[in-house]
């Protein structure tokens, strides 16, 4: 047996890291500093003759097909390795739906016959890229903004905040502003809105945002945007106000800075000050020029107001810079994590074939310590084997 294990060790292939985002998928090898490819999470569907997004699914079967096609694209078009007998590190959100995780596990283990899968949450992986013991990870994705406190390698589950304040919120606002300023309904497709956002938009500082809201500031310079069908002018307002929904406090304290402060408030009292001094803003949307600075200004302002003033007693906010581009920070964490322990923590295929169950934090089966009396009660109630 020992000899056999030795051979397996030598043959261990470099594992891959998969971060299947809503808009973009990051894929590459463990131990490398950047993903090999960052591509839209979509594939060409031959039967429907259109690009199909991985996250557009109505049932498990459709999701299964989407994942099979997407992984085929990643393995055979981009990274060019056999999936078989190779481990995978899956970067996922803590709020990833169970059906999605289980379908992905089936596709990886049964369809692609990978030898092991390690599931890791993106917040913890982002914290890994810092090497700091405590980090408050503010991740701005395509759909949601998630705020997770990671304290000594553990995400504080009861404090997780998630708000629909990702790229979609910005795109919707940008479309509204463009329609308003061009005086017509433009019906711009998503990729054009994204392109305008990426190239023209920025986030003004708090002082300027207040001036603009009061109507007492000259508008920013407009930018002509050329398109094949119809060129349009991106007004100054559209350029600098598209990201305002992230900071709008009118509805129930659901703005991005509120989410950050609420997360801190829900964390253990002795970790709060450290969390505020170890903020990491990441995710593709964080690359918008000026966004970090604005968030910092809003946080410093908001913390002086009730209810945070009395509850938090936090005075300083400090920000980290991850050694990765904003859209790939969690991926780099996965690459570090997978390379460090050589995939020892991965769920092996034969274990999955036996149990058909993934470890998941909301499941008591996986979070109850082995010594807890509940296990005895369970064994009594339902004798195993």
């Amino acid at each position: 047996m020992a000899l056999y294990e030795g051979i397996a060790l030598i043959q261990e292939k470099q594992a891959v890291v998969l971060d299947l985002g809503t808009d973009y998928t990051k894929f590459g090898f463990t131990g490398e500093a950047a993903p090999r490819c960052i591509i839209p999470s979509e594939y060409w569907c031959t039967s429907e003759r259109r690009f199909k997004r991985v996250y557009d699914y109505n049932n498990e079967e459709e999701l299964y097909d989407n994942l099979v096609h997407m992984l085929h694209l990643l393995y055979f078009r981009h990274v060019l390795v056999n999936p078989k007998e190779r481990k995978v590190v899956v970067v996922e959100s803590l709020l990833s739906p169970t059906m999605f995780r289980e379908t992905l596990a089936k596709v990886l283990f049964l369809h692609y016959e990978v030898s092991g899968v390690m599931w890791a949450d993106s917040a913890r992986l982002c914290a890994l890229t810092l090497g700091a013991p405590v980090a408050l990870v503010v991740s701005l994705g395509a759909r949601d903004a998630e705020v997770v406190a990671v304290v000594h390698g553990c995400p504080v589950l009861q404090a997780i905040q998630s708000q629909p304040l990702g790229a979609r919120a910005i795109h919707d606002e940008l479309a509204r502003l463009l329609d308003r300023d061009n005086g017509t309904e433009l019906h711009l497709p998503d990729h054009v809105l994204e392109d305008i956002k990426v190239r023209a938009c920025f986030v003004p500082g708090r002082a300027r945002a207040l001036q603009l809201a009061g109507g007492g500031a000259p508008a920013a310079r407009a930018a002509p945007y050329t398109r094949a069908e119809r060129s349009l002018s991106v007004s100054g307002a559209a350029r600098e106000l598209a990201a305002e929904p992230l900071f709008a406090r009118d509805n129930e304290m659901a703005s991005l800075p509120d989410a950050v402060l609420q997360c801190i408030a829900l964390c253990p009292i002795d970790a709060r000050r450290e969390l505020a001094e170890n903020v990491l803003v990441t995710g593709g949307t964080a690359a918008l020029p000026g966004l970090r600075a604005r968030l910092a200004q809003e946080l410093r302002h908001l913390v002086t107001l009730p209810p945070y003033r009395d509850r938090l007693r936090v005075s300083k906010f400090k920000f980290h810079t991850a050694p990765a581009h904003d859209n790939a920070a969690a991926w780099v964490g996965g690459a570090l994590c997978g390379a460090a322990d050589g995939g020892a923590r991965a769920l092996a295929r034969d274990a999955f074939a036996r149990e058909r169950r993934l470890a998941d934090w909301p499941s008591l089966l996986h979070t109850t310590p082995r010594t807890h009396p509940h296990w005895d009660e369970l064994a009594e109630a339902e004798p195993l084997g």
Partner: protein
Amino acid sequence: MAYLTQPDYIKYVCSCGQLKPITNLYFCRHCLKIRCGFCICHEVDSHYCANCLENMPSSEARLKKNRCSSCFDCPSCFHTLSTRATIAQPRQDPAAGDAKIENKQPKKMYYLSCFNCRWTSRDVGIPDQPVASGGWPERTNPFAARVNQLLDYYKAIAQQEKQEKLDRERKKFAIRGKYMNLTDKTGLTGAMARNIAGLASSESSSSAIANFVPSQASEEVEELPEDYHTQEVNLKQITSMRQRLRAAEWQPRSAARLQPAARALSVKRSQRCRACDHNLTKPEYNPGSVKFKIELLAYYHVPEVKIISYETVKPGETTALLLKLTNPTAHEMQVRLLQPQDVPEVEEREEPKSIEKSLEKSLNLEKDSSWSKVLQRRAALPTACAVRAPDAALTLAQRDDAAEYDDDPQHDTSDIIMWRKSNKLALRLQVATAAGAAPGGPARAALALQYSYRNTVPPAAAAPAPRDHTLYTTLVIHLGTVAE
């Protein structure tokens, strides 16, 4: 050509339940089943550059990160870049005097240029190179150094954890006194044992841990300049998302920072049947060749059905349908049309496997059976339209390339056979449509074929000569839309 340019009017049901045109299907001669890209196993066969058609061994491809060393893509429009030569005039050097200039020959210099969007390597200030084949400056990932530090740190921690665990276990065993281990018996110290095992000694791993500096948070956040909103913007100078992501390691925001991108390699794939592990396709190694060493396509083994013409389908009526059947094999084929529900259920029969195969299977337990259960689906067959299948055995002659020139059709026609020509047969059929078929909806009819198939796999030493099989396939015929 019709298969490339037109919609798929006829789809076959793959053994996994997917509906695909015959050109997308494979036929496993060992399982005698239709397979498709979804239910077979793909494998990387060889790496090559699709531009210069140069093969690259897999080990080298891994080292070069799957990039060709001589071809470059335009970072702006992703078209292939061309190398252009210019004659560089020796520069007038006033200090050197006139005599020297005459000795200097005009030198050929090279730069990269895109014929599609006119981007050149000079646009971003890359100096021209004296050799055509490269020497183009390579950029390194700005984060690589820090990521490597982190990697060393986490590896050291993982090592330390492993060591601590080992130590704990050894203590546990020592207390029990029941077990002896290598270090106790031979008196080796722990560090020596680690050296022998090729593991980093704990001293060096602890130095990696001790020297590690965690990321320092700062109160300063990079702010936009005060007058950012009044600055002139030229969106052409700012890269699009696609341009940034093409260079995932640098992701330049400014178009002036774009760099020629080494072209990504492609792979040739071989494909394998999952049930029996036999190859279904295996390409030739030469990148320039589009031929295969093994090519078990359904198109060569399964009778091909094409629509000649059809009457518009109307609810509650019977309409005519003309089909053409073709026998692609070198053996005569008996074909019978059936209703899909009359196809006998074939249980997934265990293929007799070699001893190694069954041993391997017993080692990795449920692998195969669990896999097919996940994938096996039942195709949703249309029921509104039904093809009236006459209960008659039709004989399809073998494929005969010489007969192609024999252009007068044989006239053994009957009420369903319209004409017959070498291995082809035209059938006159009726489609009965249910009265309840939704007008305007797609008109689709399912039809099953029973056909005889002669297996020509070279027989194993003991096995009998070519065997005849009766096989079934189900197909879905698209007949436009149901008329109002």
